[in-house]
């Protein structure tokens, strides 16, 4: 049992922290937000230069063979700096599908572009009524010759606006809520029949609602078994949840730090408001919540390697539920302790709060995951 980073992992942490300290303060972030697509190609290029975009891929595929802990380190750092760039959509999720189920040809076609930063991906999964159920898929992929024809609507596709390739879940068989008959398809974003309606999200990222109308793709577009890929989707989304947990820990760390600094300097009644016990206790509770979240983020990261899929997803569900509770408390209290200034766009704390809040509503909220743990028979 060991919770320390290896020497190599520490170096990785130092290097990404260093990069973001130099190129991602709050003012710089505002500029990146205004760039086309809502994030910085230059920063993305720097992440590629440091090998971070190739981190989880096997060396044989042009990557660096990093595991869950490496992704945790990166996501925590990205959270801490409130990074806008599509690491989750491209490297963790898009890359996840390629790593777990991509053929050699699919990997050859997509991984080099991810690693060198020239291509980004997006995961088109959410539907009008699917909410958090990954098996609830109404979009269809019908066989046509060797290939497939995709029809349906996907919503809130993160990085959907900018992605070169969309990873689309679609039903090849059965009814909307059947757990079999679901496939995963790689679709060029500029394919005929793809229309994207783009918009910024509450936390300053960008997403798109995407309609697929008679979109034709070849036989080689399917990743994994086109008739039975739910387990694959669950595996990759579990990894995305773990990554979000780590990002949330980074966000909470920075929120707590910023808030504590603020109450140490903000004076009322002639003293720093941090000298008041009611505020001290609130900050202590925020610390407790953040530590519990950090523990569960580590647990989820290590659970990512569990052989038993049920144990793995139960552990990750527990982590997402715990982190949801913690982030709500830390986020809300950060605003409260900042007082009026916390309500302004000008102060950075509100932006952390908004990103934390959106994480709660991504890939299952606290209630959803708590229910999953309950239905699985608990955790003891």
């Amino acid at each position, binding site marked *: 049992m060991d919770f320390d980073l290896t020497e190599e992992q520490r170096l990785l942490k130092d290097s990404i922290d260093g990069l973001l300290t130099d190129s991602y303060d709050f003012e710089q972030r505002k500029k990146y937000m205004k760039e086309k697509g809502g994030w910085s190609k230059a920063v993305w290029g720097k992440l590629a230069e440091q090998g971070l975009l190739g981190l989880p891929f096997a060396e044989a595929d042009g990557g660096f063979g990093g595991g869950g802990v490496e992704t945790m380190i990166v996501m925590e750092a990205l959270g801490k700096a409130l990074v806008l760039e599509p690491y989750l959509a491209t490297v963790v999720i898009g890359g996840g599908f390629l790593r777990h189920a991509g053929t050699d040809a699919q990997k050859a076609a997509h991984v080099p572009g991810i690693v060198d930063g020239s291509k980004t991906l997006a995961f088109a999964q959410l539907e009008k009524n699917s909410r958090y159920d990954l098996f609830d898929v109404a979009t269809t992929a019908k066989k046509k010759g060797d290939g497939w024809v995709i029809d349906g609507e996907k919503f809130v596709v993160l990085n959907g606006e900018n992605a070169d390739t969309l990873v689309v879940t679609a039903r090849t068989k059965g009814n909307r809520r059947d757990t079999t008959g679901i496939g995963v398809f790689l679709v060029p974003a500029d394919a005929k029949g793809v229309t994207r309606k783009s918009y910024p999200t509450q936390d300053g990222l960008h997403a798109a609602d995407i309609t697929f109308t008679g979109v034709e793709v070849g036989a080689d577009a399917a990743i994994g078994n086109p008739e039975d890929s739910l387990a694959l989707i669950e595996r990759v989304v579990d990894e995305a949840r773990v990554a979000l947990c780590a990002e949330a820990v980074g966000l909470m760390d920075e929120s707590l730090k910023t808030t504590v600094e603020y109450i140490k300097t903000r004076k009322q009644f002639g003293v720093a408001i941090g000298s008041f*016990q009611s505020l001290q206790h609130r900050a*202590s509770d925020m*610390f407790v919540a953040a530590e519990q979240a950090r523990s569960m983020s580590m647990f989820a990261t290590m659970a990512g390697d569990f052989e038993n899929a049920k144990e793995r997803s139960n552990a990750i569900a527990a982590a997402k539920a715990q982190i949801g509770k913690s982030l709500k408390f830390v986020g809300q209290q950060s605003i409260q302790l900042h007082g009026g200034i916390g309500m302004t766009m000008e102060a950075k704390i509100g932006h952390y709060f908004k990103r934390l809040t959106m994480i709660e509503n991504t890939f299952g909220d606290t209630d959803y995951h708590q229910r999953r743990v309950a*239905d699985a028979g*608990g955790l003891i």
Partner: protein
Amino acid sequence: MDLAFTKEEQAFREEVRSFFRDNVPPDTRRKLVEGRHLTKDEMVTWWRILNKKGWGVSHWPKQYGGTGWTSVQHYIFNEELQSYPAPQPLAFGVSMVGPVIYTFGNEEQKKKYLPRIANVDDWWCQGFSEPGSGSDLASLKTKAERKGDKWIINGQKTWTTLAQHADMIFCLCRTDNNAKKQMGISFIVFPMKSKGVTVRPIQTIDGGHEVNEVFFDDVEVPVENLIGEENKGWDYAKFLLGNERTGIARVGVSKERLRRIRDLAGKVESGGKPIIQDSAFREKLAACEIELKALELTQLRVVADEGKHGKGKPNPASSVLKIKGSEIQQTTTELLMEVIGPFAAPYDLHGDDGSNEAMDWTAQIAPSYFNNRKVSIYGGSNEIQRNIIAKAVLGL
């Protein structure tokens, strides 16, 4: 980072577990599972079994009878002990006064007291709190005056846990009235049967008799019963309180209780079916289990850190463990109340001193809920723990 225990650690867990299986008296275990109190004999019998095995004072230095285990082994031992469940060693002797004596006492004191603590030949109690000195412990007033070769002790202690069983007390007494309040305190030990010691029971809201008031009326104590230096008692008290770190989370205790809740919830009906099938209840139970898992991981982080970098100074992480650990313990007793519903009400007039076998199992559930309100109060209330985090961690 790696969650797995080593092969040796897993083998150690098996060894501990099978020792408990073979050696904890079944009645003792059953009573703990049912949330009943134990008699003094039952406790002492078990502690002597443990001591005979060499595990009675496992965390003491080897020369005083300790095991030399790693932090992870201590963690495993505690977790297995709590979740089997078996009675935990008597903290007042084993975790509190023992370490003070082997760290600050003289050779004679070590020889005289340590083996008797390990074998519970002496049952120790703690004379710290006073009616006017709770969280502000350093304001204590009990006085020890030097007269020739004796201390003359006058004053009153309170919340003295299981003083009714105790042979010995370790006491914080004021020995210098003119010094700053933390500087004039000494650490003195003496027999409870000394002339002038009176123990009066305090009945707590659960109906039980766990704590007492202890009065000292011109109690004469030989001067050699001072531990360490005169007027340094506050330092020893801080040492003693900081010593108990990861055990305070009581993760094993909560785990065992959650297993019991799950078991009972499969039997007790609500709406014509077992209450475990009620989704609202089940989700509440899951929420508590998730919090406990997070706490267990937090505790493991502290354990792993101690194993690697040594114990060093008291770790503010212990405040996190205390706050969360006590909240979770309280939640588990709430969930038990919820499971039995209206049958929480009947009160057993005979009480439970460990001998009332006729008592229905449901009769102890409400008292246990009432009694567990204490866990966020004792050992430095959770508010004090928040003060510690604010100062020591956040620098406020």
